[in-house]
């Protein structure tokens, strides 16, 4: 009985939240809608990083490169050579997959901190190439004038239309990721995160499962990149620079990397924080840095861990942390 009740409540909450999101353009200002679009495309990127960090225990700093690659491909094929939708987009995702496979085959031979550094280096290679290649990628300037396609007569240049399309794709993305996390593949990934050695002894092809996870994560980053590029209309090397990568990692940790909704919540908070802070102060990087330090030291589980520890009666994690320190010291 209570299970049914719980499910019902969840359903109601879900419908209301979904409804609020769908109706957003009708009651919120255009800028709010635009910001939600940003949350969605950065959300894809954060899901990509979050899936690797949370589900598979791999801290990858290459994901923004896939994000950028997708943008560059539609820029090159669409804006510059006039290839129509959906071919350029499919080719973009294919390109992301090929690059992810190449990187994945090498990077998956390593673990932990070495993996982190190698993916960092991969990201930097891509950035350096994008910045220095002027003949194809136009270096610093990047590619301009990328417009979303008109499908079935719907003009996606309109913010609200673009928002609905993004929201639909995002909902699908979340759904698929949810299924994935609950599938035997998702469980196998968790197993690898927890104990790769045992997974190997059980007969799982650990290496290939990790590669597959990397490919899936890359697709998410790629989709985010497509949406982002259509939204801003340009793609430049700054899109894939290190500070962006770090920013995304911050989102994931801020929300809580081990929670399914963590990356999304983190993105929403971080994007909004960005908007608010850049208006309020020129020193927002300092503010973000301080928040970052705070989260790492006192709220390592992210925002979503607050409700968890409150529910468990462990108090607000920050105080718990301080208290533990005092006791052990």
């Amino acid at each position, binding site marked *: 009985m209570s299970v049914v009740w719980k499910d019902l409540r969840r359903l109601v909450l879900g419908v209301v939240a979904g409804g609020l999101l769908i109706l957003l353009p009708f009651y919120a200002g255009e800028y709010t809608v635009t910001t939600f679009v940003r949350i969605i495309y950065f959300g894809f990127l954060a899901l990509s990083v979050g899936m690797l960090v949370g589900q598979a225990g791999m801290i990858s700093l290459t994901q923004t490169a896939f994000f950028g690659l997708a943008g560059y491909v539609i820029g090159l094929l669409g804006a510059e050579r006039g290839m129509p939708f959906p071919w350029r987009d499919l080719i973009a995702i294919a390109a992301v997959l090929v690059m992810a496979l190449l990187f994945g085959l090498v990077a998956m031979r390593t673990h932990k901190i070495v993996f982190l550094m190698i993916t960092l*280096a991969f990201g930097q290679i891509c950035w350096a190439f994008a910045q220095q290649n002027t003949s194809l990628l136009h270096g610093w300037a990047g590619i301009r004038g990328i417009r979303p396609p008109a499908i079935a007569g719907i003009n996606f240049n309109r913010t609200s239309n673009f928002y609905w399309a993004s929201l639909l794709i995002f909902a699908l993305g979340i759904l698929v990721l949810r299924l994935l996390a609950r599938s035997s593949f998702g469980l196998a990934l968790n197993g690898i995160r927890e104990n790769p050695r045992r997974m190997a002894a059980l007969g799982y092809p650990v290496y290939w499962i990790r590669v597959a996870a990397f490919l899936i994560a890359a697709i998410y980053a790629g989709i985010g990149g497509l949406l982002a590029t259509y939204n801003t209309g340009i793609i430049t090397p700054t899109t894939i620079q290190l500070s962006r990568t*770090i920013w995304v990692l*911050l989102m994931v940790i801020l929300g809580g990397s081990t929670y399914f909704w963590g990356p999304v919540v983190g993105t929403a908070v971080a994007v909004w924080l960005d908007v608010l802070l850049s208006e309020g102060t020129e020193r927002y990087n300092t503010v973000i840095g*301080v928040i970052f*330090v705070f989260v790492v030291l006192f709220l390592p589980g992210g925002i979503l861990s607050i409700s968890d520890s409150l529910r468990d009666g462990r108090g607000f994690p920050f105080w718990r942390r301080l208290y533990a320190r005092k006791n052990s010291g």
Partner: protein
Amino acid sequence: METKLLILILNGLTQAAIFFVLGSGLTLAFGLMRVINLSHGAFYLLGGYIGYSVVHATGNWPLALIAGGLSIALLGFLFERTMLFRVRGGDLPETLLTIALSMIIADVSLAIWGGHPLTLNVPAYLNPRVTIFGITYPGFRYLLMGISVFIALSLWLILYQTKLGAAVRAGVDDRETVSALGVNIDAIYSLVFVLSALLVGIAGVLGGSYLQLSPGGDTTILTYSLVIIILGGMGSLLGTVVSSLILGQLLSFGLAYAPQYSYFLIFVPMAIVLAIRPQGLFGREL
């Protein structure tokens, strides 16, 4: 043309010198503590800026070198003692903390020193125009190479000829046993981190004198440092020497013959080495 070749090699050596000072600090901290200090680039920038202010105020370059190095060492000490040690052993929190610190340092530096490129004035007595074999080359660059060799030798001596160095190496092997034998490994951790910070602070002053300091330089320097230690093998001093030399020459010749791709080029040996030997040229399996 002969002259050009020689100058290119000298340039490569100069680059290698600064690369070594940069990489050695990072690799040292990694070797013992398994900490990837991603605020290394920001430390460099801040060290350089502090050196700049000292030169600006006193005109005394050697003092700036010392001040830049020591202040970063102090910063490293405070950071290690107040924050880093709380999350020791966790890859992710350690990495993130150093990232956060670098964001703060870079932004505060921008607020204090502004966005203009700054350069430390090297007094003429340290920068004579030296002509050897008909090649005119700035004396300061020879000095730079000298300082780098001096640091390399000192590090080698400390690591391989002193008790402290033996403790550090033993700590890399087995930190538990070494502490059970009466060595205060936590203090050695702090010391190594401070030494690492000192080196990068010095690198900042050297780099700020030979090149310039400006916002954004921190990520460039961090990337260089990472490439150096990944290529050489994390935790290996010899690896840092070798990879600095390789990258220095590559960058020098790259700039001469394919300037548009010079920066991209430095990643090539790293990519090759990673594909064949993920632990780097002289690295241990992790």
